């Protein structure tokens, strides 16, 4: 084949790109087992940072708070996202297009600006920095993902069973329960998972909207990097990254492709 040389070049380029993406992640994981606290060379094996992490480090409390926050946000986002996707089937095309373009705002506009606009409004209404404000701030940036994931199911799925059920005389609630909901379920679950991940990492929203003195995990990491980090952070970072990679591989096993997941962006 005449393209062999060119293809070899492309393959080496590919290898380098993956190296750029994964070497920093791999180094963190290796360094979490290193005895020198700040990830410097030379390497000596130890487990003490993992021990430190699990024996009362303040990273743990922050992790729990982040899990609770993202869980609440993801559940709300799944419910409202599903409602919106179903409702969008029954409004004129113009209205649903308008809604979709408005929904894209919170993901395109830098979160710094979005968060500041919210902080100002919350201060004006007297709500200020609060848990409820932080919850709403996270919700508004994850909701678009969830809506798009569920709408994608509507667009991909075969709609004939629905029509058949209706023609055979099933009432709408019954059609929804037995036909539409099962059809949407994969989209709802993926939308929920994505909401969870995005909310878990939405640093800017939490940084500006969290109550004073309360720190979520990304905020805790931010503070640690600024004031000089602690070695148990390597351990925590490794755990989170391994969970993330496992999550992505799981989605791949479930048949999700990157393009389908990220189309909403």
């Amino acid at each position: 084949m005449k393209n062999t040389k060119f293809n070899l070049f492309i393959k080496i380029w590919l290898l380098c790109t993956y190296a750029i993406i994964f070497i920093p992640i791999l180094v963190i994981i290796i360094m979490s087992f290193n005895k020198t606290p700040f990830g410097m060379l030379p390497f000596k094996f130890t487990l003490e940072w993992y021990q430190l992490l699990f024996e009362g480090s303040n990273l743990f409390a922050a992790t729990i708070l982040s899990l609770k926050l993202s869980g609440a946000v993801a559940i709300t986002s799944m419910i409202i996202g599903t409602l919106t996707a179903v409702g969008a089937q029954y409004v004129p095309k113009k209205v649903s297009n308008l809604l979709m373009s408005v929904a894209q705002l919170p993901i395109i506009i830098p979160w710094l600006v979005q968060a500041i606009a919210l902080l100002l409004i919350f201060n004006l209404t007297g709500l200020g920095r609060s848990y409820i404000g932080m919850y709403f701030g996270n919700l508004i940036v994850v909701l678009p993902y969830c809506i798009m994931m569920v709408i994608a199911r509507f667009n991909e799925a075969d709609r004939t069973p629905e029509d058949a059920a209706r023609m055979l005389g099933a009432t709408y609630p019954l059609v929804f329960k037995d036909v539409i909901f099962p059809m949407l379920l994969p989209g709802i679950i993926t939308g929920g998972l994505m909401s969870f991940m995005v909310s878990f990492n939405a640093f800017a929203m939490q940084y500006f909207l969290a109550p004073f003195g309360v720190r979520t995990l990304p905020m805790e990491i931010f503070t640690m990097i600024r004031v000089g980090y602690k070695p148990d952070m390597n351990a925590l970072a490794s755990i989170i990254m391994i969970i993330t990679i496992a999550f992505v591989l799981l989605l791949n096993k479930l048949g999700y492709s990157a393009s389908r997941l990220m189309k909403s962006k």
Partner: protein
Amino acid sequence: MTDNEKPISKGGTMILPSSLLFLCLSLIPLGMLIFFSFIDGNINMSGEIRGFTIENLTRMFSSFTFTKLMFKSVGIGILVTVICIVISYPTAWGIAKVVKSKYKNLLMMLIIVPFFTSQLLLIYAIMVIFQAKGVIMTLLGSLNLADSSTSILYSNLAVIIVLVYEYLPYMILSLYTSIEGIDDNLISASQSLGAGRWNTFKNIVFPMSIPGLLSGILLVLVPVTGSFVEPTLVGGPNGMMVGSLINSQFTVVLNMGYGAALSFVFLIILSIIMAVIKKSINSANKSIGGME
């Protein structure tokens, strides 16, 4: 769709909760930035406003800091976008057209791992490998290229490296989606008709990848221009960007009125950039449609 296909006419009301949320938590707050631009000093937590002034706007346009940082931020945005394009194009091509199709999905999923990882952890990972006596500096030191006890962290270069690392996946994914859609027959037809590799690229591949390229630019340029975490953490004293200036009005200087004015003007500039890119995407899509 005819009317009798609509099972319940009130089904449309289901979009109300999210419409309300987008209105109250996104559109209104962003629109209100104009109003907040005229506030004198801070709004405290109970919502009291000290007074109104136009000083925020006059100060912004008379001070060099904002203009300088604005230009610098857009410049860094463009630079990071260009670096991402250079790295991503061959990569996206490789995944779409060179590797075996059964590996495509897995390779693309691995590319988006950083998207699901916390931005802070990505920054932290880069800091760990680039720190003094870290992996990269030790390597450079042993090759006598640099002193291993120094580091490139806390500079504009470090900010650019971190931003490229963070936003690379968005560019690869956008390009991949476009390149993957190019019909292989078009490419081989062009080549069997005697067009060289460069001509095929120039006349077939590149024009057809423009929509993906543009959406990649939108996804990288806009957020990179608005970044504030990276300059704060790895930028050092000279690494400020417009985002860090806005951030400091809310967390350090506590002059929210001025911060709102900065955000408002910044938002306008970003909207112009976004509008231009979106318009180009539409016309690019149309011209490809015409070619087929």
